């Protein structure tokens, strides 16, 4: 006996199997990301003043990646529509664009956004030492204006050996522009364009530093959630790209020739998955890049 309703719909539910399956799967994905986002909410609500950094990610690049995902979402439904209209060539091109979009997204993430973070350092100061570095932090003015205090100094670490060598007593940090001009109102809110660390090197006594680490997941709760959520999201993107590639390769032309509706259905379910991945990103982008 053949399995019914793989392509045609079951009359009483109006659905074919894979469509039910993918929606159930997406429901579980909602719960998965729901768990992660609830962690985000609680860790953020619990964060002490100044400990949830702002403006550390590259907004234009993030916005571009968002746009790329949105475009790929459009092309994937166009690919599906093309199949429905039995235009295989158009389908092929739309699919190619979708796949490329996915790949660009991943490449940007893995070769640019993430590595850049690993090179950045942040020295979290002990509470009692904050006053000593007031000239970098500008906290007096910030408290006056009701802004969150700054509790760490970030930039490029010039003397990496200091991390391991107990004989070196100071960290030398090539400051991010914010710390060069802490009292400049322009620095009160995150910059739209990324500004690299300056040549201005600050010497910070190790005694005063609670922790000095690069911006990896170990740095603080913000980066922990950022890397975990974008990492998991990236895996989803990768999965989608692999599936689309399979459907774009010549093997699926055969499926099309046997029954075009079959391929259209496949594209529809994988497209649903892809839209979902896009949808998650729509929340990730403002939560991590903008707020």
């Amino acid at each position: 006996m053949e399995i019914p309703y793989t392509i045609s719909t079951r009359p009483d539910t109006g659905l074919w199997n894979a469509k039910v399956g993918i929606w159930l799967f997406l429901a579980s994905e909602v719960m998965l990301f729901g768990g992660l986002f609830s962690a985000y909410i609680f860790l953020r609500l619990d964060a002490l003043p100044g400990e949830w950094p702002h403006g550390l990610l590259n907004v234009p690049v993030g916005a571009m990646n968002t746009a790329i995902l949105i475009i790929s979402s459009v092309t994937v439904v166009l690919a599906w529509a093309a199949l429905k209209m039995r235009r295989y060539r158009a389908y092929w091109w739309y699919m190619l664009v979708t796949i490329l979009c996915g790949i660009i997204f991943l490449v940007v993430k893995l070769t640019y956004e993430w590595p850049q973070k690993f090179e950045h350092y942040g020295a979290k100061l002990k509470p009692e030492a904050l006053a000593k570095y007031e000239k970098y932090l500008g906290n007096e003015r910030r408290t006056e204006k009701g802004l969150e205090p700054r509790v760490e100094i970030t930039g490029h670490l010039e003397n990496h050996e200091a991390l391991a060598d107990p004989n070196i007593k100071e960290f030398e940090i090539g400051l991010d522009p914010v710390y060069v001009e802490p009292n400049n109102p322009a620095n009160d809110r995150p910059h739209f364009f990324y500004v690299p660390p300056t040549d201005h090197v600050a010497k910070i006594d190790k005694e005063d530093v609670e922790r000095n680490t690069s911006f990896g997941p170990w740095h603080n709760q913000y980066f922990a959630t950022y890397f975990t959520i974008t990492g998991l999201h990236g895996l989803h993107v990768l999965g989608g790209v692999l599936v689309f590639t399979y459907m774009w390769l010549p093997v699926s032309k055969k499926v099309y020739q046997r029954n075009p509706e079959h391929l259209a259905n496949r594209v529809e379910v994988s497209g649903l998955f892809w839209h979902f991945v896009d949808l998650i990103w729509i929340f990730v982008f403002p939560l991590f890049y903008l707020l």
Partner: protein
Amino acid sequence: MNNPPDISQDPAEHEEYAHGVHQHVMRYVMVGVTLLVFTALTVALSYVNFGTAKANIVVAMLVATFKAGLVAAIFMHLAAEKRLIYRVLIFTAFFVLGLFFLTYLAWYNPIVR
């Protein structure tokens, strides 16, 4: 048996069907453009000061929810889906919100002296 040959291979029927799909294509593109515009808007709004940081978050989340709604409704065809799928999603939404809300409650109702 349960998978009858595809009717849409019949040229006449297919013509009609394809026409229907064709009408949608424009809509997909429009939605895509709207999403891009709203992405720009989110970025812009994040540089506007709505008074408190919380207000900014709320605004950004409203925009994001609207965008997500568009994706779900149009790209994922949720605007016209079968009842069964709505049911599954309603339960899921309920449980996610339950997870958020109850954990929140538990968090902010500790024993205090």
